[in-house]
């Protein structure tokens, strides 16, 4: 195993997971401490937990606001997030001993097509271009490259799934074993690690922060 394989395969994964977890934990801790000094609620609001959870689930599962307001972006964004969910699902089942190759292929294809489509919307639609920073394109590029490398890996390198599984199980159980030598695999892993380190400091963090914008600001009822 060369030094790059050693770093990307064995050292940085732990570093990335630690940075990811610690940064998110610190952010959440900070936002949880937010004092309710400025009252800035938005009415009407779901007052009970069931209503709030219902609203959140609907928003998270269907992207209903974007669906109502920006249908073309919604199509891209929604399918893109489904793609990520498919890959996450594939990963969990894979580690547990199943290998649904088709699921992985669909997920990775979505990770290429949808970010490309969203990139086009952002670049070609003047209204979207006006509010898109280079970072937005960069985030999409990260996902696209993971998708492309993944597809190239399963199409050309065809690594043995058992070796990959053993590697992941070894990492998770803190008994690391030699990572698969495929350059595609290592590149994919490297990009994912980079994303994990960078994620808590990017606006992609919205999946965490949106909980607080609603619960700590908009739904903080002061009329009672």
């Amino acid at each position, binding site marked *: 195993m060369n030094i790059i394989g050693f770093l990307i395969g064995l050292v940085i994964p732990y570093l990335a997971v630690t940075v990811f977890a610690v940064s998110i934990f610190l952010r959440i801790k900070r936002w949880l401490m937010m004092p309710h000094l400025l009252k800035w609620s*938005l009415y009407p609001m779901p007052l009970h937990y069931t209503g709030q959870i219902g609203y959140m689930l609907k928003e998270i599962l269907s992207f*209903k606001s974007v669906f109502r307001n920006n249908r073309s972006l919604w199509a891209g964004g929604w399918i893109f997030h489904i793609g990520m969910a498919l890959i996450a699902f594939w990963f969990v089942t894979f580690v547990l001993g199943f290998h649904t190759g088709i699921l992985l292929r669909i997920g990775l294809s979505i990770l290429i097509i949808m970010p490309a489509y969203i990139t086009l919307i952002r670049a070609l639609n003047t209204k979207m271009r006006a509010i898109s920073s280079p970072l937005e394109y*960069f985030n999409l590029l990260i996902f696209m490259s993971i998708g492309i490398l993944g597809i190239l890996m399963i199409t050309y390198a065809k690594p043995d799934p058992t070796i990959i599984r053993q590697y992941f199980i070894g990492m998770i159980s803190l008994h690391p074993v030699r990572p698969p030598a495929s350059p595609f695999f290592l590149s994919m892993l490297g990009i994912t690690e980079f994303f994990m380190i960078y994620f808590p400091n990017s606006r992609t963090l919205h999946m965490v922060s949106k909980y607080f914008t609603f619960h700590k600001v908009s739904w903080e009822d002061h009329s009672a």
Partner: protein
Amino acid sequence: MQQTTERKEKNIENNKNNQRKEQVKNATVVQKRQYPFFAIENPVEENRVSVFVKTLGAVLKDEKYKLLLDLYLNTCASCNSCADQCHLYQTTHEQKDLPAYRSNQLRSVYKRYYTTSGKLLGRLVGARDLQESDIDAMIESFYRCTMCRRCAVECPMGVDNALLTRIGRCVLGELNLAPKNFTISTSQQLEGIGNTSAIPKGAFIDTLDFLQDEIKDMTGYNVEFPRDKAGAEYLFIAPVSDYIVEADTLMGTAMALQFAGADWTIGTEYYDAINYGLFYSDKITSDILNKLLAEAQRLKVKKILIGECGHATKVVKLFMDLFGKHKFEVQNVMEYTAKAVEQGRLKINPTVNKDIVTYHDPCNLGRGLGVFEAPRTIVRAAAKHFVEMFPNRERTTAAAAGEAGLRCRTCMSSE
């Protein structure tokens, strides 16, 4: 040695020349600077960039905004859902009216000067060096937004661009960059005669007498506008301009309060509910609010009853705990009247109003305070045919008497 000294002197001379040129250039810029669509009194013209950056820094450290801004400035999916909800953008279709674009104007300064990623990576992460022209663009942009919060209703990330507009305006306010009709009104309230329309106490009392006579002439009833009644349950306060331009509303309010059996009073030491500080300055919001609370304290009332459609009620309800030197229960007059109707203390004959009637939710009272039903209860009791207009409730577009109205007046005043 001789040569080095000469070179040094030459350099110094060159620098001086350059400085002089720069000063002349700046002076020309200052002379040429035209503020958009509203007049500004005594704008700060020097070091605007550094003052802006420092003031934003101070806001970012302020306890009440610190974490909230950390949240809002770091959250936005750049999806433009807000644009479709913004009546302003839907009317103009101009880039500067995109809600997220406007918020990004503030975000780019925040990122550039107050985040590590922005300092290191600059434009890549949406950070930008603040330029004089950006400040001009912000003045225009932040005052085109009506702070109606309609966009917030549809933001999948729960971000309220109106709050960012307000913060932006507060920062500009520190450079005296605020519309003249706000600053003239608030300085009249705080340093002048004591109210936004500069109506002296004697004239105000005469107006109350006149309105009592009007009611008598119109209806035959003796309806009183009680004044300075110490220990009354309610201190009633309305925008002072309404006594002149919306006199019918106030006559109606006085009748409703009297017939419902309210124990109320008007204060003659301070009688203006308007608080334009809400739109551009915390300090002014607080100072004006405390004048109102001091009047309630002077009269030893139990509650404050506000007779207007939103911003004044919002200031007292939202900012009293934060800035107020005294605390009172606060109600909008519509909440009081609806309760009186429901309890049967106030009976209105709906057959008198035969026309079809609707109700336009003001954004501050509706989205901002959750008062949706009370006005409908009153209208239904007072008119036979009530119909909903669309959009309504939380999707209402800015009503004429909300901030949009202020902006309309602002526009008109400079044209």
